[in-house]
């Protein structure tokens, strides 16, 4: 009975979402404050019913209710309790429910924390968010009902994909969804402004902190996914240019451009067209990502639903959202005329160039992701677009973006001169040049040299900027510290990604017991394999001793698991450190107690995720800047 209550709660949530759109709209038209003010309570009730539905579904997983098709398909009694809970979002229907819950959570957060926003503006925003919610709740109820009962009650359920039986699944999807869905908030701010016909300071100022939080979550979601893929898939990689990865990376690039574009628009009133289009495309790309993942177009660990009906629904939704918002944009374009001027060498121009580079980079990813799908759909053959394409196209676009990124912070608003800029930075450039020459003595690898140069370039400029501001009393702000933090995060990421890809060592080897093998200066001694039994798997656990300069530094125990469904899984063993990872994956048993193993030496790989964390931290710091605590009197 509880399951039917959960299903009914979802129906009620849909009705509240409808009311959240209809009643406040009537209130706005009739200038009735009571009706328009209902947007908040109606939203809260919508959130409440989605939360109830979510809790009931989670309870069904915990209680092994295999009368529910979704539970029976993704869980069984042997599954550890923690994975029963996270299995709720381990497949299509549940993850859609999580999506709806997160959208409602974002909406509630906007309704509660937007105390400085005029009620009339807030009502419009909540109406837009309500419309998006209607789309997702309809999608859930019509095509992806997680509460569907089975005609016969199974005594045992199937298995949750073993790849997903991991701590990564518990946190990666919720974080990523927080980012994806978070992009709905700046989108709702923009649309509400376009509908009201008032693209004013209020919209620009108050949408930025929400964009920053969404961007921070998107960053965290992506780096968590990368970290999870690294330790769970057993390939030792951290990014595969997989279309699903790209689907989250594209909105991230646009969100990056948007947070910078918003800063210019709110301070100087420039780039309003650009900002509006970025906000629309940010959320549209989030929806496109959902379409790609859920429609079954892509085959990967992320593709839960190979159902054209679901794909068609999202496609229609996508067309309505993109088409509707662009039509609205065209209608209101005349309101965004600005007479504010700036010269070619100015902070505004610098940020604009960076924005264009980021959007171009996004388009290169877009092309590399969709072109093979398009060719396939048109029957023009199958092509594979992977790392070589992105290395050749994406990277060269991002290099000038990174170079310009730190220079912009030194530029003056509206107008600057090259003389002033070179005068200000000449010693920084001399220092960067010297450090680069010293580092060039250490390596002749061009890619690494370039990465070192960019690292020094960013860090040096950021530190100089920091010291400059420290000398100016009262000029430090959380937004400024956040910016420095995020820029250094980019530098750390860049160096980590380049060094690990250039100097990483990968070996597929046969290991005999007690016969040492040396890789990248480390000695590995295979001590054998023991049997392994878990709650829902069996397998083998290898034991490898790792020595460096005759000193034992680690005992690594990689596992090869066989889940009850028969699916094999590799659990890599990692000896992590800030300057390198030793990564071992157990392969197959060979003759005479020998085994095949994959051993990886990954220098600076942790810097990739450390960089990501710094970027997310920077965004969060900027969110809490005092500018967003401005008191407005009624």
């Amino acid at each position: 009975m509880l399951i039917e209550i959960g299903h009914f709660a979802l129906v009620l949530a849909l009705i509240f979402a409808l009311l959240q759109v209809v009643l406040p709209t009537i209130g706005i038209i009739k200038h009735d404050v009571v009706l328009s003010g209902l947007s908040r309570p109606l939203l809260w009730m919508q959130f409440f019913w989605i939360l109830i539905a979510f809790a009931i579904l989670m309870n069904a997983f915990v209680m092994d209710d295999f009368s529910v098709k979704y539970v029976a398909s993704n869980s069984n009694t042997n599954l550890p309790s923690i994975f029963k809970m996270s299995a709720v979002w381990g497949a299509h229907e549940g993850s859609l429910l999580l999506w709806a819950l997160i959208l409602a959570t974002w909406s509630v957060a906007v309704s509660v924390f937007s105390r400085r926003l005029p009620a009339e503006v807030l009502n419009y925003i909540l109406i837009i968010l309500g419309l998006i919610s209607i789309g997702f709740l309809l999608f859930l109820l019509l095509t992806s009902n997680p509460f569907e009962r089975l005609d016969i009650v199974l005594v045992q359920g199937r298995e949750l994909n073993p790849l997903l039986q991991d701590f990564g699944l518990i946190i990666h999807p919720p974080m990523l969804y927080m980012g994806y869905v978070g992009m709905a908030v700046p989108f709702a701010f923009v649309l509400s402004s376009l509908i009201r016909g008032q693209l004013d300071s209020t919209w620009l100022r108050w949408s930025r902190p929400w964009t920053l939080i969404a961007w921070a979550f998107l960053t965290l979601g992506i780096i968590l996914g990368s970290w999870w893929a690294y330790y769970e898939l057993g390939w030792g990689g951290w990014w595969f240019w997989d279309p699903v990865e790209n689907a989250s990376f594209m909105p991230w690039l646009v969100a990056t451009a948007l947070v910078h574009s918003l800063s210019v628009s709110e301070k100087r009133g420039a780039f309003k067209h650009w900002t509006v289009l970025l906000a629309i495309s940010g959320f549209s790309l989030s929806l496109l990502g959902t379409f790609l993942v859920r429609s079954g177009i892509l085959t990967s660990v992320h593709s839960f639903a190979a159902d054209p009906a679901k794909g068609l629904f999202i496609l229609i939704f996508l067309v309505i959202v993109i088409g509707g918002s662009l039509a609205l944009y065209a209608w209101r374009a005349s309101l965004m005329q600005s007479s504010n001027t700036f010269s070619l060498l100015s902070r505004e121009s610098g940020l604009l160039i960076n924005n264009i580079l980021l959007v171009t980079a996004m388009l290169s990813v877009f092309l590399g992701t969709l072109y093979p799908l398009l060719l396939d759909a048109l029957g023009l053959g199958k092509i594979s677009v992977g790392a070589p394409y992105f290395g050749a196209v994406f990277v060269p676009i991002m290099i000038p973006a990174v170079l310009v990124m730190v220079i912009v912070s030194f530029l003056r608003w509206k107008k600057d001169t090259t003389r002033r800029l070179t005068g200000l930075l000449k010693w920084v450039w001399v220092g960067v040049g010297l450090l680069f020459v010293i580092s060039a003595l250490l390596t002749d690898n061009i890619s690494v040299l370039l990465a070192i140069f960019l690292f020094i370039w960013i860090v040096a400029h950021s530190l100089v900027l920091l010291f400059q501001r420290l000398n100016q009393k009262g000029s430090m702000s959380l937004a400024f510290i956040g910016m420095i933090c995020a820029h250094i995060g980019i530098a750390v990421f860049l160096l980590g990604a380049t060094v690990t890809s250039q100097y990483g060592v990968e070996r597929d080897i046969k290991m005999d017991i007690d016969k040492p093998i040396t890789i990248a200066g480390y000695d590995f001694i295979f001590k054998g394999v023991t049997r392994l039994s878990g709650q829902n798997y069996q397998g083998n656990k290898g034991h490898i001793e790792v020595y460096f300069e005759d000193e034992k530094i680690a005992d690594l125990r990689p596992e090869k698991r066989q889940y009850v469904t028969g699916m094999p899984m590799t659990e890599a063993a990692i000896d992590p450190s800030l300057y390198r990872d030793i990564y071992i994956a157990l392969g197959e048993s060979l003759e005479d107690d020998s085994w095949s193993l994959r051993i990886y030496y990954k220098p600076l790989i942790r810097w990739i995720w450390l960089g990501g964390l710094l970027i997310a931290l920077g965004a969060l710091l900027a969110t809490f800047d005092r500018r967003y605590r401005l008191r407005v009197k009624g």
Partner: protein
Amino acid sequence: MSLYLWFALMVITSFAWIIWFLYRPLKSNKINLESSNIALGKQKLLELEQDLHQNLIDEKQFNQAKEEVSTTLAIELQQVSNIQNNASNNTWVLILILVLLPVMSIGVYQYLTPESNMSQPLESAEKPLSLEQSANKIVQYLQTNKNDSEAWKMLGLTYFELGKLDLSIDAYEKSYQINPKDPRLLVEYASMMISATSDNQFSDQSVKLIKQALKIEPNAPDALYLAGMFAVSQRDFVLTKGLWQRALSALPEGSIDRAVLVNALSELKTVEESKNTPEHSVSVRVDVSDKILKSRSSEDFIMIYVKAAKGRPMPIAIKKIKLKDFTGQMILTDQDSVIQNNQLSTHEQVIAVVRISATGSAMRGVGDIQVLSKAINVANNPSIHLKVK
């Protein structure tokens, strides 16, 4: 409380929530667009001054920017409409929601839920189905879902519980035809077949299923257990022990199956101790000349077997391996016996045969190379050396 009472309670709660806020609206923050834009305009001017102080804008541009902020604010204030909001009587909303909320929620729910599902939870919540009813329900379900292997399996289990063994095996067979690669199904089907016989006999079909299950999942404990049971029936206790120990290591600590296996193994030990038949082996070392190796493919097979020195030339015990995997020596024991009743240890004298064959066929073919030993005494556990030149 019945389902519809719960639904009614949820609708009433929803209704009460709306009514509450309709008649006690939330307090507004009193901020209007005008005051918001003015406050932001002022802050922008302050920030502009800060930029000037930090040398982020020069004096001339500062003045221009200041003007731009003022102009922008003026435009923004112009755009603000000054229509007064009011709070009117919303009884119509109350009536509309009173009607629409239950009608829409129940209507949408009924539209989305098939009739069978609407009654199912109430049925199952109140009274569990009997086995007979369950079987009928599954049969009904299978009429429209003929390819649901799980459902056929469940039907097989239900029939078995009902004592309808023939129907049970038929259902399992259908499940097997649909999904022949599910090791759990294979083991369950095999054990059902064994249970269906009067004295728990292993048929050829049940043995085939167990082997198939082990091929798919070599360490499946239930398959290993059944395979061990089969070995017991063949009085091959060494094999039984090996299989059950494998099953034991595959089972998690503390499981009931583990306790059963430990018991079975201790019983097996007792049986083994009472068995005094000595076991013998023949060790055969083979040197294959380089010339032969060069002339053969590494994918060819090398077969080593022993046959009786006198009597039928049928192999007694045999081992076969690909040439590329051959290490130079093989030991033949009773476990390698071709027929269970004709074990190596029961023979006094045998002849060892080494054959290199492209096909690996039991019969000697064209191009096969074969070398034979002299007659050897099995009781001495002999170790012999053969050369293939």
